[in-house]
């Protein structure tokens, strides 16, 4: 009788799954949901850029419609040679966000590999951490500028450069996450249960590290995006005919007085996207926080 009652209470109170809890907590956070919506819009732009605004519009100029204000035909107006700003922004999304994501993924993969080697092998750890020390001492922006100056500011170079600059940070952060997990009793317990290194990494270490890493990577995407735009803005990244947002801003500085819209629109695009990613990342971190997993 009592056993049965116990069993019932157990069932009644404890059937929630972990993933559903996380989703529920995430959607309770309004700012994070706003971030998610904006990110979905941005993704939509990236995937359907050609449908929303034909690719020709990025370069096609219409001298009669120079420096037009916003209208039905040109949603965000046109620039000084009559290119449609909206089309350029939509296609610029691919470049700017693409650089952010690309640089993050590249540095994440390399950083995670280095970090895993550090966490699993004591001797390699010593060597890698010394190298990371030196790497950290070279001012990030200087290293980025030197690389861009010598290799030129193409999209690929920008991704590679930002990734190189970002690797030591990722390595150090992921390493500390991994080391923290490796010290836990359950890793020792899995070893005693006969689990080999490969399975240990895949089934125990990675699943426990992945939350922290995802949140970190999300935040890094926005930081990388802003850096890419900044470098293009000062003329070291992607150069102006490209609709990269930083490059558009760089181009627009010549028209401060005559057409401030040219400045405001890509500026707003950069800020809103970065803000959305940050809000999403914040919300994700709070939702995944093991402290609220009770």
């Amino acid at each position, binding site marked *: 009788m009592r056993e049965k009652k116990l069993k019932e209470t157990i069932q009644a109170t404890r059937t929630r799954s972990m993933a559903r809890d996380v989703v529920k907590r995430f959607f309770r956070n309004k700012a994070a949901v706003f971030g998610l919506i904006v990110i979905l819009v941005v993704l939509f732009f990236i995937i359907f850029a050609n449908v929303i605004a034909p690719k020709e519009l990025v370069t096609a100029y219409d001298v009669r419609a120079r420096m037009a204000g916003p209208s039905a035909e040109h949603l965000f107006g046109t620039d000084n040679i009559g290119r449609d700003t909206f089309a350029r922004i939509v296609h610029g999304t691919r470049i700017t966000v693409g650089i952010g994501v690309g640089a993050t993924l590249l540095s994440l993969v390399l950083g995670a590999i280095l970090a895993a080697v550090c966490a699993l092998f004591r001797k390699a750890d010593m060597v890698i951490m010394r190298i990371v020390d030196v790497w950290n001492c070279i001012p990030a922006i200087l290293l980025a500028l030197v690389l861009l100056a010598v290799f030129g500011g193409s999209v690929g170079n920008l991704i590679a450069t930002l990734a190189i600059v970002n690797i030591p940070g990722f390595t150090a952060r992921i390493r500390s996450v991994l080391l923290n997990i490796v010290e836990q009793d359950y890793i020792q317990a899995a070893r005693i249960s006969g689990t080999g290194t490969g399975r240990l990494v895949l089934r125990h270490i990675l699943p426990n590290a992945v939350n922290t890493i995802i949140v970190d990577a999300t935040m890094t995407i926005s930081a990388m995006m802003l850096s890419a735009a900044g470098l293009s803005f000062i003329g070291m990244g992607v150069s102006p005919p490209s609709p990269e947002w930083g490059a558009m801003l760089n181009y627009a500085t010549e028209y401060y007085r005559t057409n401030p819209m040219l400045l405001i629109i890509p500026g707003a695009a950069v800020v809103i996207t970065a803000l959305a990613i940050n809000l999403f990342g*914040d919300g994700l971190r709070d939702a995944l926080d093991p402290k609220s997993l009770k």
Partner: protein
Amino acid sequence: MGKYIIKRILYMIPMLFCVILVIFLIMNLTPGDPASNILPITTQQSVKDAYNASVGYTGPLGLRFLNYLKGLFSGNILSYTTRENIFGELAIRFPITLRVGLIGFLLAAIIGVSLGILSAVKQYSFVDTALTVVAVFFGSVPAFLIATAGVLLFSVRLGVLPSFGLNAGIKSYIMPVAALTISGIPVISRMTRSSMLSALNQDYIRTARAKGCSERRVIWNHALKNASLPIITLLLTGFAGVLGGSVIVEQIFSLPGIGLYMLQAMNAKNVPVVMTCALLLAFIFMVAMVLMDIFFALIDPKIRARYK
């Protein structure tokens, strides 16, 4: 402690050596040369070679590096483009960067830390929420956009502040400093808030309350001192970053500081200038790290005991 600091300072020498070596290798092993970067495209190859030889961009790599080191120790390295002593040029330019960077950084630190403390103490109140929202927003606005928006508003629209140069006295500094300050505050205030909150959650805070400390005493005497270690870390690494990040602000406002100097040197493949700037920035970064260790030892007796 003294012994440890000396060790740290000695450790800086090989690190700095590595830094300039890395920059040297990148600059020398990549395509392009000073002549092609500066002289018109139509210049004959023989003229280019003569130019490269005249500035010293020739001969075996080891020798070039040795020459640089020699110049470094004798305090006389010539810039490829101006043929002037780099130290002389830096002496004019570095103070400008330092002034903008230092003022901007100090303001950001003071405002950021105060707002962070306020947020933590009033956790979940309206003030905290408002500050968090503002911090998240400005955390997503890069310095170059703040600067651009400033130029648009104060130079173009209102016409009260100059948009470039240093000719308007103190007025010329307002916008560059403000751009650095505003972009620095969010990170600092969020960091301060979280470390204050974690300090306020500690057992010894409860003990302090239990013995009758006023809330103000709890915050200033017990929590803040314990929260200060991560804040100091952020500020000191941040300061080195601000100096490096001055490139963008200097470019926007055309300030003749070391950021702009560096940028021009990179485009001209002016190897010694780039190396010297890297050396300077790396040196400042490492001094900041040593300072950090000193602060840590001053604040935390456990760390202090380790050095004895």
